[in-house]
């Protein structure tokens, strides 16, 4: 298989081999190992201490800002791809670089704001 779909078939084959490798390794492990489960073994391992409370805790709102920063810079990265493809073409050059510079600069203001408001600080 060649052409466009063929190049992705190679990627798919690689993924399939990767999954197969994982399955074979884990199955071999399961077949060869001894299996003596006990109540103490199947409790959650938490640094050697007995786990306390439920397994689900409400997350702090401050994590949300990190997730949102990630969304923001993912959107920025998305616009960097088409820009990186064309900025060397005739008719773009310096203009495109300046335009992208303004875009990234405005978004960097957001990061600056978050930094100045100590949102990025942990304690």
């Amino acid at each position: 298989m060649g052409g466009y779909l063929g190049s992705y078939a190679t990627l798919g084959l690689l993924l399939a081999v990767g999954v197969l490798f994982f399955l074979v390794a884990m199955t071999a492990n399961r077949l060869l190992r001894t299996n003596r489960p006990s109540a103490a073994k199947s409790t959650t391992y938490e640094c050697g201490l007995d786990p306390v409370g439920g397994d689900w805790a409400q997350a702090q709102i401050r994590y949300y800002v990190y997730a949102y920063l990630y969304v923001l810079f993912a959107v920025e990265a998305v616009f960097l791809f088409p820009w990186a493809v064309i900025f060397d073409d005739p008719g773009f050059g310096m203009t495109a670089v300046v335009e992208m510079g303004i875009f990234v600069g405005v978004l960097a203001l957001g990061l600056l704001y978050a930094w100045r408001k100590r949102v990025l600080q942990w304690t």
Partner: protein
Amino acid sequence: MTTADVLMLALGAVAVGAAAAVVTTRQIVRAGLWLVVALGSLAGLYLVLSAELVAWVQVLIYVGAVVVLLLFAVMLTRAPIGVSEDLDRSRWPGLLIGGGAGLGLAALLIDAYQWSTVDLADGAGAEEVGAAIFRSWVLPFEVLSVLLLAALVGAIVISRPDVSARVGR
């Protein structure tokens, strides 16, 4: 049927099945994870249609960022988590609206494109989009950065009471 047709059908079936699982599961976190499958197979459909840029944007933004935001929103609001019996709204109006919108859009698209065919380009996309943005749509592109900045500042002010208190003082 060509390979592309088979892949389209298979990925479409996965997308529809996962989307149905999103709205029928009783565990809200699983709904979010089914959404990953649905959006991911949609990205696969874009790949088959040789729209590589759109496909990877779909993976980066929707599968990555938006689902992370959704899961964070769940983790912030619904704790402890588990089977939620109150997830369902009345089913028939939802089915009617969802099915009606789907069938209506399908009828509209089938009517618009009839049986016209388009040759698939070999993984194009990025170059055309880049040329369009940096030639014709520069101003909306720059305004978009201001919009994103405003959204970030708003999210920080709303989510951090200490920040908004300092602003108010």
